[in-house]
């Protein structure tokens, strides 16, 4: 029997307000060893998170707990009562909950048109179509298809539901020669079962791993512009955005503030960043956040200067700022760098990293590079066994942003960017 949580929460007179977030997930998952199916999984689960708010004196307290499918009515009553007692101990500044908005929304997707198991097979086979090279193969692949339904309601009239689909492929393209076998890691997240696009994405990675096989550690490290692609640009842009989140600002952990210049002596393109609810090609898009707040697109960086903060309902009120909601997508404006202009000088294109290391406090950017291309006069020399290292502030001041846009899970912006001041070591 499904619990009437709203009724149980209203029965407890100690509860000033409440919020319920219910997330239902159905998934179909297929796990391959080479091209053979090893495991099939399905999930059908619900996670229900309840937050109880208690106003006491000059303070507002809250406490959160989980309700399970197996939770009985008596257990739920007990959890609510315990949460009330916990919330009474919490002495936070007052704020109000969002009010009186309802929404029922399903994001259209080709994944809704057939059973997930059938689509999983199509996705897998689309990926395997790129497994067509004599020396290359996909050594392992995992396919995940998800349907999620998120329902948020609170005691102040918020009642919103969103249903959406997404898929993820984790693939390990591998290249074998008589001397050695090398691999790269691919995690590809998408919202539409576009088989041609899936094949193209995996094929791109197959070609990269062929280059990794040919890559050597250079005897002399290249001294030239370092070019990063959209995955690393997304990491940099989100790191900058995180500094302007209301939560960071309220906690005094933000490295810069509104009005501060992120690019001190600009000798490249200026940075313009807008946080968005939805963006074409970004499957993390949403129209409301975890409080049920309707998301408001917000420009946070213009011409290299921080101009606005953003974030959730509570910290917006603490800071006296507009309630934008926790925005899930980021758009970085494209710049002036054409592919032709990039090719005019030698450059070091980072293709695959262990993970870009950024420390905004220590003004550091760097990391181990698993595959890079040194490009000079149209000649591509693949390299490996190297690292990059530099000052983040120098890199940002010198950045030249591509005029070509691309979309990733939560990023829309330049496909690549060239930096001075980053050293290959």
């Amino acid at each position: 029997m499904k619990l009437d949580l709203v009724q149980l929460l209203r029965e407890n007179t100690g509860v000033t307000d409440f919020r319920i977030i219910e997330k239902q997930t159905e998934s179909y998952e297929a796990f391959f060893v080479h091209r053979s199916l090893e495991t099939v999984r399905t999930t059908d689960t619900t996670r229900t998170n309840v937050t109880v708010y208690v106003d006491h004196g000059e303070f507002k307290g809250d406490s959160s707990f989980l309700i399970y499918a197996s939770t009985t009515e008596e257990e739920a009553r007990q959890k609510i009562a315990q949460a009330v007692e916990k919330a009474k101990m919490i002495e936070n500044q007052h704020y109000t909950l969002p009010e009186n908005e309802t929404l029922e929304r399903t994001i259209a997707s080709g994944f809704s048109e057939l059973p997930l198991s059938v689509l999983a097979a199509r996705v897998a086979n689309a990926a395997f179509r790129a497994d067509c090279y004599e020396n290359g193969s996909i050594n392992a692949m995992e396919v995940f298809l998800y349907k999620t339904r998120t329902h948020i309601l609170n005691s102040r009239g918020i009642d919103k539901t969103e249903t959406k689909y997404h898929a993820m492929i984790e693939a390990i393209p591998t290249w074998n020669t008589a001397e050695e076998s090398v691999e790269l890691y691919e995690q590809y997240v998408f919202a539409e079962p576009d088989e041609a696009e899936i094949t193209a994405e995996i094929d791109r990675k197959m070609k990269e791993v062929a280059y990794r096989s040919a890559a050597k550690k250079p005897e002399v490290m290249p001294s030239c512009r370092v070019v990063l692609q959209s995955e690393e640009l997304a990491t940099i842009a989100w790191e900058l955005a995180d500094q302007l989140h209301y939560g960071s600002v309220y906690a005094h952990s933000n490295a810069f503030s509104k009005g501060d210049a992120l690019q001190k002596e600009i000798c490249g393109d200026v940075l313009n960043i807008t946080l968005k609810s939805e963006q074409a090609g970004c499957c993390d898009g949403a129209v409301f956040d975890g409080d049920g707040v309707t998301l408001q697109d917000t420009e946070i960086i213009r011409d290299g200067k921080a101009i606005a903060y953003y974030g959730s309902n509570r910290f917006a009120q603490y800071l006296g700022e507009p309630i934008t909601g926790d925005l899930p997508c980021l758009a970085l404006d494209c710049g002036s760098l054409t592919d032709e202009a990039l090719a005019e000088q030698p450059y070091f294109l980072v293709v695959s990293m262990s993970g870009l290391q950024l420390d905004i406090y220590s003004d550091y950017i760097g990391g181990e590079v698993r595959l890079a291309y040194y490009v000079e006069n149209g000649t591509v020399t693949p390299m490996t066994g190297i690292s990059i290292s530099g000052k983040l502030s120098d890199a940002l001041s010198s950045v030249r942003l591509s005029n070509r846009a691309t979309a990733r899970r939560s990023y829309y912006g330049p496909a690549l960017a060239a930096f001075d001041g980053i050293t290959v070591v």
Partner: protein
Amino acid sequence: MAFSQFLESRRAACRALIRALDRHFAYVSILGTDVRANRIMVNKNTSSITEGGDCESGFVIKLHNGKAFLECSLDDITDDTDALVRHILSTVTVPSALAEQTISVPIPADEPLTQSFLRENDYDDYSDAQLLQFCRETKDEILARDSEHILNVVSAISTMRVNKLFLSKNRELDQSYGWANGFAVVVWRENDKMVSAREFLGYNDLKTILDEMPSKISPLIDKAHHLAYAKPITPGVYDVITDPSITGLIAHEAFGHGVEMDQFVKDRALAKQYVGQYVASPICNMHDGAAAVLSAASYFFDDDGVLAQDTQIIKDGILVNGLCDLTAAAELGATATGNGRRESYKRKAYSRMTNTFFEKGTDKLEDMIASIKHGYMLFETNNGMEDPKNWQIQCTAEHGIEIIDGKLTENYVSPVVMSGYVPDLLKSISMISDDFIVYGSGSCGKGYKEWVRVSDGGPALKVKVKLA
């Protein structure tokens, strides 16, 4: 502390479901989980008491259809066995387009065993009010040390109570254990620079955390001050001493991931070709196991129902064993080592590390430092990334301290990224200290997902490695 009432109440239904599914499948097991977590956090202006993100309650049914594995994750197993069987048979299917691609994996062994395991803890001795007060006092004590430079403080205590029930035709196991963590973080501004410094503790009992946390406050403040003056390192190859945290990071990233044997099945690990060969300095011995030490990843049986072990991975520099889950063991014809772990009942089990560490050696730390003309001692794990196929590693330390003429200086560098080729790094180990610490506050992903709690550590090592 008793075993989960919820799981106990579902035991009979699980047995009935196994009997019913046994008519359709060659192997059936059920893992039930009931994990309760509590997190109390205080910072300068706010506080919270919440159930932690580790909380879960549900079941995963693992099946073998004579060829491959099938799994189904559900929130509950009720007494309506027939309905559950119908649901499983109709949803957990191989699509016809993939049917011909299905692998043939041997049916796993299902050796008979019935056992209950319990590790006591003291979490019920402390109320939320007491722990909240402790966090508030810790925060106030830190703030009182330096009001000029501290921008914010976070003080937190978390506990996790894990209950798991494993049933198959021939096995019936249950376990109950916990783990507690405490941490303190300061956000600090000095020398026109903002830094963050942290101290973590992880133990089976809360009392130890509450006893030790006050002693961490002075080192925390001192570290924040020094980090404010830290400079970037000049990239290069250096003689390096690793503190036990960085030693553990090397064990974990350099070799631990590379011997997770599900990677052997996929030909994703170079280590497969090196079993029985030297992969490290002959003075190196490395272990992993939920039963190897008591730390964050210590349990009694894994998520495949295999008992926890202490597996020696490297013996005197030679690779001797890998870490294996039940599925990989069946595929490889190997023995499972108790390393089959799931992020939750909603996720697949993989071969995963638990508590991973180098054995201690015979050198004195002061002699190791004295042996270096110019180099660095590295401290505190930030993050790391594995590359089991090609043995490249990246390990990031929070900071390093320069060693000049055999002495630690006041010169801090931060952050420090260590990278290189795994055998070069491991074979460069020339001294190992005679002390030993395992840190029980980490978590680890496989690739970029499947997060599980792990610990790692060991003694201090002297290595030669590239820093940037």
